C-alpha cells in the first residue's frame, strides 16, 4: 500500500498530554514536519517553555533544554552563540513570551539573534487552569477576570508580532492560526520560512500561532476554532509582518 501520510520522524510515537481540541498537538506536528523537510533534526536544539508545552521534549526527538518561565530566548542565545551552525528555536506560550519573558523576547529580536521562536497565543493561561494572559481579549472571561477583562483595571492585550516587527534585528515575523485546514497549511508555510530564515543566517524569526484552548475557554473544540477566527483574528490579524528582503 502506498503511504500518503505518516508521522514525522522528528516526533516520538507517543500520545500527547494535551486536552482534546488543543492546538499544541497540531503545532508540534508542523514544527516536526518542517524539521524533517529541511533535514535538520540532527542539528536542531529546542528550548521548551514553562506552561502547557513544558513537556515539548516528550514529543520532539531533538536535543532540548527546558527553560525557566520566560527565559527561553536567553538560553537559546547562549546555545546558539556556542554552536552557530545549529538550528535553535524556542517554543513559548503567551505568558512566557508576552508577560514574564517580554524583556528576553524583545531583546533576542533586537540583537537579531539567529534563532526562531514559535509563539503560541491562546489568550489564556492553560497550565495553571485559566487565568488572564497578556493576550486575553477585552471582555474575555478568565479565572482572574471573572467579569471579563476590563481595560481600566487589567489593561490591553499585547500584539507581539507588531512590536517585534519594528526591530531591525527581526528578519521574519508572521502571525498564523491553526483554526482550519487552510490555516494549518498557511501556518506550516510560515514556520518553514522562519526556520529557513535562521538557516540562511538572516536574523531573528518569529511565528505567532493563534491557538485554541477549549478547556479553559469552556467551549467545544468546534466553538473554539470559530472563536479564533471570529474574535482573536480580529484583534490579532493574520499575515506576514516582515519578510527577508531578498529571495
Amino acid at each position, binding site marked *: 500500500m502506498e503511504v500518503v501520510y505518516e508521522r514525522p520522524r522528528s516526533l516520538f510515537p507517543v500520545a500527547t498530554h494535551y486536552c482534546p481540541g488543543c492546538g499544541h498537538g497540531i503545532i508540534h506536528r508542523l514544527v516536526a514536519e518542517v524539521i524533517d523537510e529541511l533535514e535538520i*533534526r*540532527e*542539528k*536542531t*536544539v529546542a*528550548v*521548551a517553555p514553562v506552561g502547557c508545552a*513544558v513537556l515539548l*521534549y516528550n514529543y520532539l*526527538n*531533538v*536535543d*532540548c*533544554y*527546558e*527553560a*525557566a518561565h520566560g*527565559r527561553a530566548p*536567553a*538560553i*537559546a*542565545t*547562549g*546555545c*546558539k*552563540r*556556542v*554552536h552557530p551552525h*545549529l538550528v535553535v528555536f524556542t517554543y513559548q506560550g503567551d505568558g512566557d513570551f508576552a508577560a514574564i519573558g517580554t*524583556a*528576553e523576547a*524583545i*531583546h533576542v529580536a*533586537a*540583537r537579531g539573534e539567529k534563532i526562531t521562536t514559535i509563539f503560541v497565543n491562546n489568550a489564556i493561561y492553560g497550565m495553571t487552569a485559566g487565568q488572564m494572559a497578556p493576550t486575553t481579549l477585552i471582555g474575555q472571561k478568565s479565572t482572574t477576570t471573572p467579569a471579563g477583562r476590563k481595560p481600566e483595571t487589567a489593561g490591553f492585550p499585547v500584539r507581539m508580532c507588531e512590536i517585534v516587527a519594528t526591530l531591525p534585528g527581526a528578519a521574519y515575523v508572521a502571525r498564523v492560526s491553526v483554526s482550519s485546514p487552510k490555516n494549518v497549511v498557511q501556518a506550516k508555510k510560515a514556520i518553514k520560512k522562519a526556520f529557513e530564515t535562521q538557516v540562511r543566517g538572516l536574523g531573528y524569526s518569529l511565528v505567532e500561532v493563534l491557538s485554541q484552548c477549549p478547556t479553559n475557554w469552556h467551549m467545544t473544540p468546534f466553538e473554539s476554532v470559530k472563536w479564533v477566527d471570529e474574535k482573536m483574528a480580529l484583534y490579532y490579524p493574520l499575515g506576514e509582518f516582515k519578510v527577508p528582503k531578498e529571495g
Partner: protein
Amino acid sequence: MTEKRFMAGNEAIAEAAIQAGCRFYFGYPITPQNEICEYMSMRLPEVGGTFLQAESEVAAIYMTFGAAGAGARVMTSSSSPGISLMQEGISYIAAAELPCVIVNMMRGGPGLGGIHPSQADYFQATKGGGHGDYHLLVLAPHTAQEAVNLTMLAFDLADKYRNPVMILGDGNMGQMMEPVEFPPPPKTEFSKKGWILDGARNRPRRLIKTLYLDPPVLEKRNLAIASKLSEAVKNEVRFESFMVDDADIVIGAYGTVARIAKTAIKILREKGVKVGLLRPISLFPFPYQQFAKVAESGKKILVVEMSLGQMVQDVQLAVCGKTKVNFYSRVGGVVPGYDEILREVEKVVKESG
C-alpha cells in the same frame, strides 16, 4: 615562566578566566565590577571568544545556562543587587548540574545599598541563595593574585562537580591594583562532557531539564546533588592558617578583611600579643574542622566581617560552644581599619585576663 602585570582585581579575574579557557561571557554592567565586563568585551574577541552584554542579569544568567549546556566554559559576573536578580537562574543551573563560574563583587546592601565594599552576601552565596536544596562552591580570594589562582581553579571545580562555582570578592578587591602573574591553569581531572546539547547526530537526543513532577523521582535528584556536594565537602575545603600555632587569640576573617587583619596581627605580634588568623578560602565547603580545632585548643576567637554577623554563624557552629566567639563588624560599605581590629583584639585579651 610568567611576567608580573599590574592589574585591578576585576581585570585580573577576567584575564584568569580567559587563560583558564573561558570563551563565553554574558553580563550586565553594575558597579563595582564593570571592569570585568569591559575587559571581557576587549579580550574575548581577541581569542575567538564571545562577549555579550545582556539586557539584564536575569538574561545574563540564562545565557550562561544555555552556553554551559552547550558545553562551553562560561562565566558571568555582577555585584550584590545583580546577583540577587540571578538567583532564579542559579537555582536552575544547580538543578540542571551545569558547570559555570559566577563572580560576585559584593557591595553594601540591602536594596540598592551602596557601591562600596561589603561581605553581606555571605548567606546568599553559601547557603543556597535561590530556591531549593543546593549549594554553590564558593571561593573567597584576599589578594588579586589569589583571585587569579582561584578563578582558574573555579572553572576546574565547576567541571569536576558539574556545579556552579562562585568567586566571592568585594568592591575593594575588584578596584585595587596589584602586581599579578598568571601561572599555567590547573589540570584537574573530570569526566568527558557526555551530556551537552550540540545536535543529536549519531546519538540519542539529550535533554537538560529540572522539572520532576513525581516526588520520589525529584527526591532522588535532590539526593544525587547532595551526595555530589558531600564529595566536594570532603575534598575541597581550603583555608590559610596564619600564625595560628602559638596564638592565644585567632581571628576568623575572609577576603579583604582577612588581609587587613594580617596587618593588625603583624603590629600586635611586635607588641608581643600572640594572635593569628584562620582564613577560610572556600566558604562552601567551610573549614568547620579547623575552627573546631582552634576552639578545642583553648584559643579565643574573634570573627571580623563586613556584615552584621553571617560567617560568624558558621564559626559558632564549628566551635559548638567550646570557646567564646567574639565578633566585630563594619557594614554599609565601611571597611574596618587595621587599628580597629587591633583594638578589638586587645579588648579580647583584656577580657580573658
